[in-house]
């Protein structure tokens, strides 16, 4: 934060490090609760779910393949 001291002939500025400055009132999410499910939020989260499910299915397939399950079934 910078302040201009009074009663000075030449302008001067006091610069204070953020850690030592007076705390600001920030924007607070506490009072708002969960985000409203607008169409774009819903589609974005749906896309994310589909992506995660596909990736987890792929990982599961890989683990089963490494365990030799598919080889055992084909025999």
């Amino acid at each position, binding site marked *: 934060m910078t302040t201009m001291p009074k009663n000075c002939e030449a302008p001067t500025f006091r610069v204070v*490090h*953020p*850690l030592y400055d007076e705390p600001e009132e920030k924007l607070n*999410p506490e009072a708002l609760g969960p*985000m409203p499910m607008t169409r774009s939020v819903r589609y974005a989260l749906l896309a994310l779910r589909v992506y995660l499910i596909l990736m987890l299915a792929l990982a599961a397939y890989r683990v089963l393949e490494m365990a030799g399950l598919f080889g055992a079934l084909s025999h």
Partner: protein
Amino acid sequence: MLKSFIRLPEWIWPTEKGQVVRSPFGRRLLTFLMVFGPGLIVMEADNDAGAVSTYTQAGAQYGLHLLWLLLLLLPITYFVQEMVVRLGIATGQGHAAMIYRRFGKWWGRFSLFDLQLVNFLTLVTEFAAIALALGQLGVPVYLSVPTFAFGVIMMVLTGSYLRWERITVGLCLLDAIWLGFAFIAHPRVGEVALNAVVPNLPQGGMSPDLVFLIIAVVGTTIAPWQLFFQQSCVADKRLRFSDLNFSRLDTFLGATFTILVAGAMMIVGSILYRNGLSYDDPAQMAGALVAFGGNTLKYGVLLLMVNAAVLGTTAISLASSWAYAEVMGWSHSLQKPVREAPGFYAVYVIAVAAAAGIVMIPNAPLQLIIVGVQVLAGLMLPSAIIFLQLLLNDEALLGKKFVNKSWNNWINWTVIIVLFALSAVLAVQVLIGNALPG
């Protein structure tokens, strides 16, 4: 203590009363120097041990042909981190806490678990790199790994955010030595400039190996932990609304420095490409460089690898401990002594100590861990960025001043789609192998 003997400048060691300056320019410069730090650290810490390996490998395999990719990643990494800065300054809260509060417990816990897991596995790879590099210098793993783990822990236990930040900024600036090593490689300036600005492919065109390496470079340059780290760091430093533009500048300078260092790593690696040499790991590469730059280059590269791992370790562990403590509602600040934030420091210490312990286990499955890191990072990055983008469009929370403009959204959705596709290809390639057409 030092301050009482020597009068340090206010921007190096600030005091509660601040400093009086006489010109508007002096005020802006001093304010910037006070704000400077999180942007450089988050960017340069991403040039960690894995990044050293990836960038030098890119140079050793393809010469200077992928330099353009780094220049392309500069605006992308800046735009992603700028959003984090805006969110952190506006709310004064970390990324994990924001996801938890705005998207509910399920997504909050998912993000936290995913972050902790991928961060921990990355930490193991950082300590593996320390063991590998110092092993080349004759230091046994039982000495090198515990010593560095202790040092990295002590960096944060002083109860002073500023002390940690100044040490870490110093370590980041040490990476400028890579630029000197790039000159030792004697690259042709015209060739470097041309490859940096004109996208081109090496001989053989777009092979599966090249696609995989391009994805690895992108994944190395933009990592999920960076989002969590910088937002928490900005909040811990208590940056003010009026600091936003200086914090953006810090982030931009950090991104530019990081890309320059990454380019220098690629140029160093290209020495081996020009001479038709190959290697198995970066420590072995350092040994091969003796013929071209003497022991200075060899030892320098090994020590810079250790520096990269230390930077990665402190930043990634902090991203984990800030995120965990925020979600748990614990006190979480580097400015607090251990007795006032025990849970926060405990997460940091446990993560570092456990990762170091795993590396010291004989025949630990390090290769499996490295593959796990790649897959999990691939899974994590799109989800973390989607939450970020949704939060930055949350006008109810941020108001018109901090919310994304439409041009922000066009850029960000493009970046997200590209990252989604690349992360998916990486994960599929690692999981199935041969997924890319050969």
